């Protein structure tokens, strides 16, 4: 790479990144609670839970998700509930089944 090109081009790109980061940082700092809550809801995150996935890497490290966090997404939670109900129903049906006497 040409040293001269790097000397003239590099500071400009760094300055642009710095300007942009500072401006976007200030946008994020001014985001309202309602905006944050709306985005979290959209991502299926339950902010009222202490262990919510939204706080991963902030309030706690990674890899500590509880089933409740994973199922914070309502659609997935509904599917899990449905699956559980089905399993229970099958178990109940099996219990009721009268096995034929052995001859």
């Amino acid at each position, binding site marked *: *790479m040409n*040293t001269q090109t*790097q000397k003239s*081009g*590099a500071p400009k*790109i*760094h*300055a*642009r*990144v710095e*300007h*942009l*980061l*500072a*401006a*976007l*940082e*200030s*946008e*994020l*700092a*001014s*985001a309202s*609670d309602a*905006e*944050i809550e*709306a*985005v*979290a809801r*959209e*991502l299926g*995150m339950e*902010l009222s839970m202490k262990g919510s*996935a*939204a*706080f*991963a*890497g*902030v*309030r*706690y*490290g*990674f*890899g*500590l998700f509880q089933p409740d966090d994973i199922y914070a997404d309502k659609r997935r939670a509904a599917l899990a509930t449905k699956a559980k109900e089905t399993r229970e129903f099958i178990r109940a049906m099996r219990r009721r089944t009268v096995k034929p006497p052995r001859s």
Partner: protein
Amino acid sequence: MTQRKPAPSFEATPAEQALTLRWVGEMDLLRLKCIARLQARGLPPEVHWSDLLQEAFRRVLDGSRRRPPDVPMVAFLGGVMRSIRSEVWKQTQRTSMRLQSLQAQQAEHELLLGRSAERTVLAHEQLAEIERLFASDPIALQIIRALAEGLAAQEVRTACDLSKTCYESARRRIRRVLLREGLRMPAQ
């Protein structure tokens, strides 16, 4: 950019401690998480956004960084993260230079160029990545490009020829995209 995933930790993080001390609220933590993820985009892959965020909290907690009374905590911590970010780059540069002293003059020159070229490449990538987030929103993209030139709000509006309502609505969309990027799980 591929980032290192830190090992799970069971100790209270510096951010959690600051929350306990009521220096920040839960929503502030999320704002800061989004800021950290935004800033970490242009860092070497070995530095995770969570390291940037927790290190900023650590410095405030141990008193090595003191917040001026008139600066809001989120803005202050954002500034601390920015300074850690440039420290990371200086550190990387110093490591390269130490390595260089052990090598021949030619290799030295190449290493120095290599590291600073890496930083420049990452800066280009970072800018492109941010622009890609707004690819489907031409007004937001226009604003992003104007902000990168260092223009202030009024100048951006004039340069992009936007009404106040249009500008404010684009800003809301920009915030929404940034929040989504900042809060989403890495695999999502």
